[in-house]
């Protein structure tokens, strides 16, 4: 299997998932974003590594349906209780890694699923959505992440997102970089930017040429490795084509309250700022799919909690449990602020961002080393699932992927199954 040497043929021979039209020249406007009539669907996934305090984060299992009490860990969300649904008894059945809160959260993969490999993953739910929702936006999807993912209990990976081949998708680890990528305008004159794009293309052609000679005589595993390189070039191709489409359009301005971050923000303020950037990215329709692998380590530091996140996660009654509960409350407080923002942001037709967004918030780790009953909260009107509910699944090992499948379908995506899903969560759709 010899990879094709020229970029164009290579693109054409790629799998259909990107479905990229090769845009030959500037001014090819047919692919510019169509005028929007109804606001688009959007999806957000927020993952927080080391789980929660199980005693105080989950609602009382005996009170389900629409009448349930907010537990202490979710109290700061009181004003949104009608709009959030907590689902209990969801889990990824193949996960056995007690310190990996995010690696398989959106994928449901079996680490050992591939013989001859000690690590394997599959595509994450957000990337399925991005394939459909990302065609018309400047950014196909946006991955936000944090420094030192392992310390924050996320496990291997670069963000919550994993591509079709089960490879990690990189994310922006800090709000400053994310801000500039999303909103900083390039002040270079148009002609110069066009020339730059052309040069970038020549650069890609050149390295692909070298890739061609490297590819000669490679065995399967090595070809797979090189394919990652080729994929990254292809991703840039996609981006360049999009840049070309968007070349004469300035980047949108975020709302007035989203300022360019000055200096370093960490922990609580960092998450708050990332949330603001996410809302702004959605509002300006820069992207429609966002994942955020939230920091836990820096959050604790900013809350003056003296324990390492892992140490805290092994809480027992006493200061470590207090710290764990404070973390829960602060995260809920941040989420409540984010929901406020989504509700306050108007779409052109008078509805709000919240009405068209699906937001999932949780972790693959419940608490300590428990991987069952993954903490799961959903909100937003995008997928049409029932909100204001407390659901306890009767099967204590209901696949978490059933939820992802339900949400993807709710967003109008024709997906047959996802990960280890066995069906939809009917109680949510009803």
């Amino acid at each position: 299997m010899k990879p094709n040497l020229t970029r164009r043929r290579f693109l054409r021979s790629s799998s259909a998932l990107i479905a990229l039209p090769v845009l030959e020249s500037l001014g090819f406007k047919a692919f510019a974003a169509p005028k929007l009539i109804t606001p688009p669907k959007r999806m957000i996934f927020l993952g927080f590594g080391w789980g929660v305090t199980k005693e105080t984060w989950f609602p009382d299992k005996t009170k389900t349906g629409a009448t349930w009490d907010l537990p202490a860990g979710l109290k700061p969300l009181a004003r949104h209780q009608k709009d959030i649904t907590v689902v209990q008894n969801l889990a990824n059945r193949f996960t056995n890694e007690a310190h990996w809160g995010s690696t398989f959260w959106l994928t449901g993969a079996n680490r050992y699923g591939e013989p001859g490999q000690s690590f394997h993953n599959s595509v994450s739910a957000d990337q399925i959505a991005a394939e459909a929702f990302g065609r018309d936006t400047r950014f196909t999807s946006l991955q936000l992440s944090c420094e030192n993912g392992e310390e924050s209990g996320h496990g291997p990976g670069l963000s919550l997102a994993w591509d079709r081949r089960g490879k990690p998708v990189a994310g922006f680890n800090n709000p400053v970089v994310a801000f500039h990528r999303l909103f900083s305008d390039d002040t270079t004159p148009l002609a110069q930017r066009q020339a730059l794009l052309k040069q970038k293309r020549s650069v890609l052609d050149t390295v692909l040429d070298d890739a061609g000679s490297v590819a000669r005589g490679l065995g399967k595993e090595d070809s797979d490795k090189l394919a990652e390189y080729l994929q990254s070039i292809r991703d840039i191709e996609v981006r360049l084509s999009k840049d070309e489409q968007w070349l004469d359009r300035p980047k949108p301005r975020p709302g007035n309250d989203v300022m360019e971050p000055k200096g370093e923000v960490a922990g609580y303020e960092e998450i708050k700022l990332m949330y603001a950037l996410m809302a702004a990215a959605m509002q300006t329709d820069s992207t429609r799919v966002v994942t955020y692998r939230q920091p836990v380590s820096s959050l604790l530091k900013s809350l003056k909690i003296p324990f390492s996140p892992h140490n805290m996660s092994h809480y027992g009654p006493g200061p470590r449990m207090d710290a764990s509960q404070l973390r829960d409350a602060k995260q809920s407080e941040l989420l409540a602020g984010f929901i406020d923002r989504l509700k306050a942001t108007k779409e052109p037709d008078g509805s709000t961002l919240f009405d068209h967004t699906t937001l999932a918030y949780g972790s693959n780790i419940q608490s300590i080393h428990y991987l069952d009953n993954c903490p799961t909260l959903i909100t937003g009107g995008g997928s049409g699932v029932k909100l204001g509910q407390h659901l306890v699944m009767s099967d204590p090992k209901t696949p978490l992927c059933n939820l992802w499948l339900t949400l993807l379908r709710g967003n109008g995506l024709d997906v047959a199954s996802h990960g280890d899903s066995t069906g939809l969560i009917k109680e949510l759709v009803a």
Partner: protein
Amino acid sequence: MHHRWHRLLFLLTFIGTASRAADTPQARMDEKHRAFLRSYCTECHNANKQKGKVRLDDVSFALDTVQRADLWQRMLNQINSGEMPPEDAKQPDKLAKTDFLDTLSRTLVVARKSLGDVRGKITMRRLNRREYKNTIRDLLGVEMDVRDLPADGGAGTFDTVGASLFMSSDQFEQYLAIGRRALDESFAQAQVQTQKKRFEPETIVPGMKRALERMNDDHRRFTEWKAAGGKPEDLPKFGFRGDATAAGFSDSIWQGNHEWYERYLARPELQNGLLLENTMNETMQIAMDLPKDLPTGDYVFRVNVGLMPDMPTKRAFLSFLQASPLDKADTTFLASRHITAPLAKPQVIELPFSIVPDGPRKFIFMEKRSLYTHGFSLAGFTKTILKDPKDRDPVLWIDWVEWEGPLNKGGASSPVASLLPAANGAKDRNQARALIEKFATRAFRGNPPEPEFVYRLVKLFEARIKAGEKFDEAIKTPLSVVLAAPAFLYLQEPATDGKPRLLTDLELATRLSYFLWSAPPDDTLLGLARSGELKKPAVLAQQVDRMIASEKSSAFVSGFLHQWLTMERLDFFQFNTQNVADFETSVKAAARQEVYETFAHLLRSGDSLGRLLKSDFVVINGLLASYYGIEGVSGDAFRKVKVPAGSPRGGLLGMAAIHAMGSNGERSSPVERGAWVLRKLINEPPPPAPPNVPQLTRLEAKALTTRERLAAHQEEPQCAQCHRKIDPIGFGLENFDAAGQWRTGDSYWKRGVPGMREKKWDIDPSGAFFNGPTFKDYFELRDRIAARPEKFARGFTEALIEYALGRPYGFSDEPLAEWIVGQAKGSGYNVRTFVQALVASQHFKAK
């Protein structure tokens, strides 16, 4: 020598073949466990009554497929979580359950390893972050900050394992950008002049005097204003601009500050130098803010420094730090210097440092000291916390500080320097092509680029010329593309149809070089590869010796040890400076360095690996000697020092870093330490922490000894299966506190627990290995471990194979590991023999 390596090669052909044919051992549960299943499982999970759609009466006892392993994994998880057998069903007795769980966990580890065995296949890999940085440095003579590149490794492997080194579009663009930046710097550095500047720190004294006068004047007017009634509207009359100023005033704060300044400024030593006095939160710092336009490159600081008389020797250390580029309070520790000269005859110390593109330019000098993070008032601090003048008064006197640089002239000292001058004045594209070809050949580690690739690069160059750029500028575009090309970023060893083959000489040079230097091959290696000499066993062995002797092998030592011994734990937490006050940044850095330096000493001097288990010498510097209470070691160089009689030091278990890793920054953790010893020193790793095992936390708020608290681990089979092996070893190391200092007693108290009183006890380190010998104390425990060097050697060898070959260690590597250990054993476990044997093996020379 010659003769020995020839014989080795002969042997190798044999094991090479044997190992390729060797069967991977099968993971299998012993038939005797069928009785356990019959008694507790198959009543519900049989052919007729497949409860939960699970049938176990026909379960395969061979875990030889992913599906079979997954079924056993589910059984393990169910029993671990206490869900099975159900509460109302017959329960196994504790010991039977513990043994069953123990066997099953271990069998599953074997099954996963066996099913995941790559069977010797080495996946092509890209340079990892460390290697990329070193490669750019060797190529262009420029140090680059690469921390923004994604971190490597993960999933429990080394950062050299190809299968877990990924690539993304962002990363590709980063490579392009970093490569371009490095070229810019390299070209620029070749032309700069070395500068030198000296700072006399006493020049700040007049400013401090003025500050004191202002403070006193403010206070005088504040007192007058108060005497006049203290009305806010009167403030302007007394020279205050608003009530904010007045509100911020307090007599006690003024008192503290005033006293401090008066005392300090009265010191005669300030005539021609500066004393690093203590203030509330830390010692006084001298921060050198270097000009923004100073070129990047290698520099040196020189500090003329002396000691105040009759001060404690443990305080005679100067710390050198770098401020964070974002100018927040964070600093990065760079180095520590042991000061031995008296103030009357100060000494000049040198601190080399680099200015990297977009990196920090602010550098700090201060006394080595723990930072007290709690808010004491200044007066309170000097009066109560540091009562003793010997703790409080300044110890370091700085005469002057100077910097000089850039010293290296960057590009000028790099291998490509010889090409670059050609750029000056060169005009036409033939010269550009020649330059590009030479550069790419070097960047591709001796492999010439394909003509088509060069053709395109020249086109890029021409496009830049056409855009109006000069030769020097235009040439950088194609060169930076070379630095993002696959042939540069990937270590390629193409193997047609995946069939094993011998490496070419150039490939061998590259593999060897990235193994021992984490950097590309130098001219000597490339030369030997080109002449076909390198593959000769004697030449290869000689090169290994040369490479180990080189300073560049430090990259192997730190890169390998950091990952092998899981030393990232040292950075997991902020050490609580109230509990372990002396374990501050510079001691922590020296403690980490001790692990590396000890290993490097064994490797370079050809000493035994067994010294890591027990040794009558340590490899330390003045700072660590002071921390360990070992006399007569002065200066910053690490060197071999005899362990005093009765000292617990010597070997990994005597090192502060190892014990600090086995803590949570505050208290020692017998579980972490015991598991680490099992994993690293005895090579009997416990299975990974299982999910869903009920955690016992009910004892957290009780005043109990550590042993009493952890006794709960033995109650439940789910816990006991591993903790019966882990905990006793950890208890045997309890004489070391959270920062590796020796202690004989411990105490427990928890803040925020009502009615709790501090519990104190004497440490009892005695115990026994599970199903093994007893030990009465730490020394005997260490002896028992040191008595089995072959187990340690085996674990070390497996890690070395994985690191060097860049693929997970698998069962199919067992003959190789056995052979290497056998070779090493014959040499008394000489560390260098392990490396030599691995390099000499067929596996190292084949793909």
